[in-house]
C-alpha cells in the first residue's frame, strides 16, 4: 500500500485542554479521505498540525509525508511540499482580482523582479480552466459567488503544485449545484493524482465521494472505515461520531414545566448583505416556563442567526414572523426592546460579542442592566459594585476583585461574567448560544447548575449547542435546525444522538415536515450560511 501521509500518535495540548490525544491518520496516495467528527472533536486542530499552523515542537507525535518524516515550522514549509489547506473561511482578498488572489504571496516575477501581469493573467486563466471556471482574471473576487470563490481557492492551491489538498468543510457555504460541481472537481483532481483530505459534516457527500473515512471524537481516532465496504453506512458513522457515555456530567433536575413563555411563529430572516438569501425559513417554536429547550444544528444551520435575529433584530434583514411572550405579542425591533420584553441572549463568541475586555468585571456585569442601577441617568455606583460582587460570589467567578479587567479572566470565568450580565437583567427567557464552548469540564458543570437554578425559578432557557450530549443532558425538549428550518422536535426522553444527527443532516429537499412548519409553501430554499458570514454583519 502506498501511503502519501501517515500521522502517528499526534497529541496536542492547549492550556487546560487536551485537543488531540494519540491521534493517527493514514492517507493513501490518490484517494479522497474524509474526516468526520462533531464540532470541537479536533478535526481542524489535526489539520492545523499537519499544515504547520501549529509548528513542530508544539505537539507530540510524528508525521511522515511521501515516506519521510517532516517537521514543518510554518504553513510555508508544508506548502513547499505540496500540502495546501483550504479553510472554511476563505482566505481571499475581496478587492483584488482573481489573478492577484491566485498569485498572492507567490507572484509571477518578470524582468527586474517586477510582477509580469500579462503572464500572471494568462497563467490564472489556465488554472481556472483546470477547475472549470471561465472568468476574466482581472475580475475582483468580490464579484464572484461563494461557490466560484471556493474554486478560485482550489486554483490557487493548484498554482502551488499541490499534491495533498486539505478541504475544511468545503461545501458548508455552497448551494446544491455548486456543491455538486465542487465534488466533481475533487474527483477530477483525484484522476490527476492529487490526494484530498476533506473535513465534512455532510454524510451523504462523504458517502458519495470518499474512499476512506476516519472518525474523530473527543480528540481521539475512533476508527477508519473503508467506504467500499457495505457495512460503512451513514448510521455507522453517526454512531462513531457521537458514541460516549453521559453519566455524571450533568447536574440532576426534576422538571416542573408550566405555561408557554416564548412563542415564535413563522420566523423568517434574510441575509443582511446578500438580498434574497434566506437564512431562517419559517421557524416556529415554543418555550415553556421551567423548561430547558435545546436547539441542535450543525455549523451553518442558522442557530446563531435565529437567536440574534430574535434578540432585537440584531442580525439579518426583511425579518418577518411573530414573537409572543406569555401569550402577548411583543415587538422587539431593537435590543433595548428585547431586553424590556425580558429576553436575554448570551452570545456564542464572548470575546467579540459578549464582553468589553478592556473594562472591569463590574462594568461588564452591569452593562445590560444599567437601567436598573440608574435614576434620571445617574448610576448608583455603590449599588453597582454590590451587585457585581453578589454575582461574582453566587456564580463563583474566580478573580481577585470585581475591578479586574474582564480580558484577564479564563474562558469559563468570562462566560460566567456574560451570564451574570444577563441574569441581572432579570429575563423570563434566557437564550444561551454555545454556553460551554471552549471551557473546561468543571466550569461546564457550574454553568449547567446555573441553568437549572434559573428554570427552577419558573424562567425558561433556550440552549443552542452543537454538542449533542450536552443537549441530551440538560434539555427537556430539543428542536433540530438544518438549512434555517426547524426539521424536528423531540422530547429529550425520546431523543438519541443518532436520531438528532439524522434530523440535523436531512437533505435540503426532504426536510421532515413537523407540526410547526408542515405544509408551508417554500418560496425559496434556505442556503447554509457559515459562521464567517456572521462576522461584521451585526447591525
Amino acid at each position, binding site marked *: 500500500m502506498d501511503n502519501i501521509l501517515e500521522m502517528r500518535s499526534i497529541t496536542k495540548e492547549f492550556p487546560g485542554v487536551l485537543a488531540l490525544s494519540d491521534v493517527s491518520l493514514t492517507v493513501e496516495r490518490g484517494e479522497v479521505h474524509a474526516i468526520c467528527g462533531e464540532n470541537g472533536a479536533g478535526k481542524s486542530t489535526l489539520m492545523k498540525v499537519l499544515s504547520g499552523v501549529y509548528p513542530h515542537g508544539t505537539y507530540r507525535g510524528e508525521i511522515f509525508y511521501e515516506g519521510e518524516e517532516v517537521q514543518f515550522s510554518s504553513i510555508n514549509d508544508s506548502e513547499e511540499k505540496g500540502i495546501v489547506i483550504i479553510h472554511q473561511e476563505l482566505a481571499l482578498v475581496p478587492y483584488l482580482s482573481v489573478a492577484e488572489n491566485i498569485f498572492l504571496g507567490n507572484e509571477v516575477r518578470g524582468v527586474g523582479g517586477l510582477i509580469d501581469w500579462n503572464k500572471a493573467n494568462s497563467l490564472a486563466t489556465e488554472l481556472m480552466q483546470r477547475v472549470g471556471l471561465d472568468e476574466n482574471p482581472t475580475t475582483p473576487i468580490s464579484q464572484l459567488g461563494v461557490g466560484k470563490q471556493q474554486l478560485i481557492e482550489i486554483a490557487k492551491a493548484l498554482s502551488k503544485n499541490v499534491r495533498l489538498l486539505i478541504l475544511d468543510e468545503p461545501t458548508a457555504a455552497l448551494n446544491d449545484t455548486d456543491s455538486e460541481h465542487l465534488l466533481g472537481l475533487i474527483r477530477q483532481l483525484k484522476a490527476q493524482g492529487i490526494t484530498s483530505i476533506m473535513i465534512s459534516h455532510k454524510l451523504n457527500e462523504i458517502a458519495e465521494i470518499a474512499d476512506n473515512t476516519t472518525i474523530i471524537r473527543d480528540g481521539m481516532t475512533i476508527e477508519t472505515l473503508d467506504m467500499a465496504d457495505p457495512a460503512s453506512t451513514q448510521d455507522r458513522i453517526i454512531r462513531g461520531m457521537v458514541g460516549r457515555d453521559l453519566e455524571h456530567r450533568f447536574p440532576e433536575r426534576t422538571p416542573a414545566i408550566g405555561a408557554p413563555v416564548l412563542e415564535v411563529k413563522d420566523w423568517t430572516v434574510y441575509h443582511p448583505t446578500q438580498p434574497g438569501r434566506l437564512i431562517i425559513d419559517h421557524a416556529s417554536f415554543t418555550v415553556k416556563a421551567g423548561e430547558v429547550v435545546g436547539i441542535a444544528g450543525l455549523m451553518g444551520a442558522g442557530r446563531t442567526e435565529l437567536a440574534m435575529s430574535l*434578540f*432585537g433584530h*440584531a442580525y439579518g434583514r426583511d425579518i418577518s414572523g411573530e414573537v409572543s411572550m406569555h401569550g402577548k405579542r411583543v415587538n422587539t425591533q*431593537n*435590543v*433595548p426592546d*428585547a*431586553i424590556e420584553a425580558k429576553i436575554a*441572549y448570551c*452570545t456564542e463568541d464572548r470575546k*467579540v*460579542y*459578549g*464582553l*468589553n*475586555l*478592556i*473594562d472591569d468585571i463590574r*462594568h461588564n456585569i*452591569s*452593562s*445590560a442592566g*444599567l*437601567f436598573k442601577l*440608574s435614576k434620571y*441617568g*445617574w*448610576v448608583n*455606583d*455603590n449599588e453597582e*459594585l*454590590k451587585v457585581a*460582587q453578589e454575582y461574582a460570589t453566587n456564580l463563583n467567578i*474566580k*478573580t*481577585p*476583585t470585581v*475591578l*479586574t*479587567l474582564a*480580558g*484577564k479572566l479564563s474562558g469559563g470565568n468570562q462566560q460566567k461574567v456574560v451570564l451574570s*450580565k444577563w441574569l441581572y437583567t432579570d429575563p423570563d427567557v434566557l437564550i444561551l448560544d454555545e454556553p460551554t464552548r471552549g471551557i473546561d469540564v468543571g466550569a461546564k458543570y457550574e454553568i449547567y447548575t446555573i441553568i437549572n437554578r434559573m428554570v427552577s425559578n419558573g424562567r425558561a432557557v433556550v440552549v443552542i449547542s452543537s454538542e449533542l450530549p450536552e443537549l441530551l443532558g440538560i434539555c427537556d425538549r430539543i428542536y433540530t435546525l438544518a438549512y434555517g428550518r426547524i426539521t424536528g422536535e423531540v422530547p429529550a426522553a425520546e431523543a438519541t444522538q443518532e436520531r438528532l444527527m439524522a434530523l440535523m443532516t436531512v437533505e435540503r429537499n426532504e426536510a421532515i415536515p413537523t407540526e410547526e412548519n408542515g405544509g408551508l409553501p417554500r418560496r425559496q430554499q434556505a442556503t447554509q450560511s457559515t459562521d464567517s458570514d456572521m462576522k461584521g454583519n*451585526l*447591525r
Partner: protein
Amino acid sequence: MNATAAGLRDGLTKNLRQSGILIAFIVVVGASALLNPNFLSPGNLTNLVLQYSYILILALGMLLVIVSAQIDLSVGSVMALAGAVAAVLVIKQGMPWWVGVLAALGVGLLAGAWQGFWVAFVGIPGFIVTLAGMLLFRGLTALVLNSISLSPFGGDFYLIANGFLNGLFGGQGVDIFTLVVFALAGLIFVYLQVRDRQARIAYNQEAGSMVGFIVKQILILAVLMWFAYQLASSRGLPNILVLLAVLIVTYTLLSQKTTFGRHIYAIGGNLNAAKLSGVRVRRINFWVFVNMGVLAAVAGIVFSSRMNGAQPAAGNGVELDAIAACFIGGASTTGGIGRIGGAMIGGLIMAVMTNIMSLMGVDYPWQQVAKGLVLLLAVAFDLWNRRRSEGAA
C-alpha cells in the same frame, strides 16, 4: 497567594497608567521651574491659565469623542465660526454680550448636530465627517467675517476671558476672595475623597494605608493653596478658571457616573457587545458630537474674548492640541479607555511646555518639534504599558 499577587499587579499597572502621566506632569513642572525662575511667578501662572484654558475645554469634549472610538478634526474651525458669529453680533451689530454668547453656543450646537447626524445616522467615520467639517466651518468663518478680522469686543464680552473675580473681601496685595474660594474647593475635594475611601472600605475594596491617604490629601491641599496664593498675589481669581473648574467637575461626573458616560465607554470598548447589551449606539454617537460642538463653541467664546476679536484663521490647528492632550493623558487610540483627569493633565503638560519654551525664547519651529516628540513618547509609553499588562495576563 496567586490571586493576591495578581490583584496587586493589577493595581500597580492601573496605577502606573493613571499616575504615570501625573509623574510626567510633575517632572515637566519641576524642570520648568529650574530652567526659568519666572515660571512659577504669580504673573506667569495666571497667564498660563488664561492662555491655554480653551485647549482644556476642547479636550473635555474630545476625550468623550476619542473614548467612543471616533475623532473630531473640526473643533478649530467650529471654534473660529462660533467666535466669528459672536463678533459680528457684538462688534458689528452692537448687541449685548450675552446675545453673542448664546448665538455662538447655538452655532456650536448646530455644527455638532450636523456632524453627529452624518456619523451616527449615515454611518460615515468621524474622521471623514469632521475633516469635511474642518473645511466647511473654516470657509463659513471667512464668509461670516468677509475674510477680515473684527475687533475689539471690549466691554463685558472682553471680560469673559480677561476678567477676575476678586476684591470682594479686600486684602493687602493678596486677594482674600481667591484664597477663600480655593480653600472651600479644597475642603470639598478632601471631603469627597474621604467619602470615597469610606465607601471603598465598606465595599471591601483596596483603600491603601490611612497614613498614605492623609499625606496625599495634605500634599494636594498644600499645592492647591500655594497655587491660590500665587494667583491671589497677582490679579486674583480669573473668571475662566471658575468656568474651567465647573466644566471639569461636570464632565468627570458625566463620564463616570451617568449611563450616558458608561455607554460611551462601552461603545469604545466593544461596539458589538455594546449593541447586544442594549446600548442605543446611534443616539450616543450623535450626542457625543453635539456635545463636542457646544464645547468647541465655549472654547471659541473664550478664545475670541481672550484675543478681543475674531479672525478668519483663529484656532487653526488647535484640534491637534486637544487630541494630543487626550492621548498624552492616556486615552487609547482605539477607544474605550481614557479619563477626563488624564486629558486635563495631558493638556496641562502641553500648556506648560509651550509656556516654558516661550519664556525661554525658544523659536516656534523648535516648540513644535518638542511638542511632537512629547506626543509620540506619550503614546509609545501607553503602548508599552498596555503590552506589558497584556503580557502579564
